[in-house]
């Protein structure tokens, strides 16, 4: 257990919020560089290697080139690099929090944090449930995507985007229906 792992879930979430806001203020290449060094330092402190960093930012690998291209055209190369670096550093930082904290503790911390908003009519339990369902849905949808892809391959339609997207969306909606039914059966609205 590294010091980063041991830190409370609430503390980590609060720190993530503060760092995100601070990153928004970064406008210079030096600042962006410092942010990257800082984030890498935290990964080192958590005893996580380059592979862990890559697995957190990997989902951005198609997104980043698009963002860079748009910003390069509209804001120029320097601003494009600074903005994109900020984005990647932020995702890596958020990834560090999730990689070092059990989901149940994160959700409990969120429910506590949302507690005071009960007075303005927010149902903290419901909000935490939505987040739990989102976390729970990731592996379920990943498995669904795998099934759809296999079915596509079996029929020799690997590169047909529509043959992938349509069954995936239909499957996700069916899954959502079934989940809604299960929530009702387990007394969510009672």
């Amino acid at each position, binding site marked *: 257990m590294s010091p980063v792992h041991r830190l409370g879930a609430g503390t980590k979430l609060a720190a993530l919020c503060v760092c995100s806001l601070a990153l928004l203020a970064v406008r210079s290449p030096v600042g962006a560089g410092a942010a990257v060094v800082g984030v890498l330092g935290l990964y080192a402190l958590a005893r996580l290697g380059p592979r862990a960093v890559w697995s957190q930012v990997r989902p951005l690998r198609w997104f980043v080139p698009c963002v860079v291209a748009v910003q390069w055209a509209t804001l120029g190369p320097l601003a494009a690099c600074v903005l994109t670096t900020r984005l990647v550093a932020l995702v890596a930082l958020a990834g560090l929090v999730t990689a070092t904290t059990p989901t*149940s503790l994160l959700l409990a911390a969120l429910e506590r944090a949302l507690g005071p908003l009960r007075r303005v009519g927010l149902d903290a339990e419901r909000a935490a449930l939505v987040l739990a*369902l989102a976390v729970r849905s990731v592996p379920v949808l990943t498995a669904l995507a795998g099934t759809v892809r296999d079915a596509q391959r079996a029929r020799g339609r690997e590169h047909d985007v529509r043959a992938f997207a349509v069954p995936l969306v239909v499957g996700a909606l069916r899954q959502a229906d079934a*989940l809604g039914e299960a929530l009702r059966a387990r007394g969510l609205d009672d």
Partner: protein
Amino acid sequence: MTEVVLDDVHVRHGEREVLHGVSLRLTERRVAVIGANGSGKSTLARLLNGLIVPTSGRVLVDGLDTRRRGREVRRRVGFVFTDPDAQIIMPTVAEDVAYSLRRSGLSRAAVAARVAAELDRHGLADHADHPAHLLSGGQKQLLALTSVLVTAPRLVVADEPTTLLDLRNTRAVADRLAALDQHVVLVTHDLDLVSGFDRVLVVDGGRVVVDDVPAAAVPAYRRLMA
């Protein structure tokens, strides 16, 4: 004893009538429902805990009308679905079981103790803090069953709980269901599972066409499908 009464129940989905006037009184501890795909079995099962309310007619569980007293009915009737992935709500095993007890009024420590005991009873104690998606299909269904049983319902309705499972896991789930003190209504395509049941309903075309002991109902169903 738990008593379920269906009184001339019709269920319509849009233009299509799924059940055409079903009247039943179920008091046996083990009732099985068999029938072809699309015959209305799942609709029949969902009537029993008020997930579906009749278009006309009524369903009473221990005298409680599912249309008006849905909450009390669902507290008495636990429901196990075919696909445990749709039933498991929380990311980890123990959290999912604990979710069922969230309004039990028990303290956090009491909930944790009850969850631990129930997981232990179903052989899932070693997986308590594992993400639910890492369980095997059979373990997921056992988790779904555990999350239902932890609330101590009087009646457990299971809608094809073994359809997605292999033989070993089918046995494991069937054994758990067989061992329950509660009343069980089991919807299934696995005719081997119903041999020990008290009563078997064969549903066909939205009607209960056979209502008998397994030794008579299962052969009747085979003839019907031939």
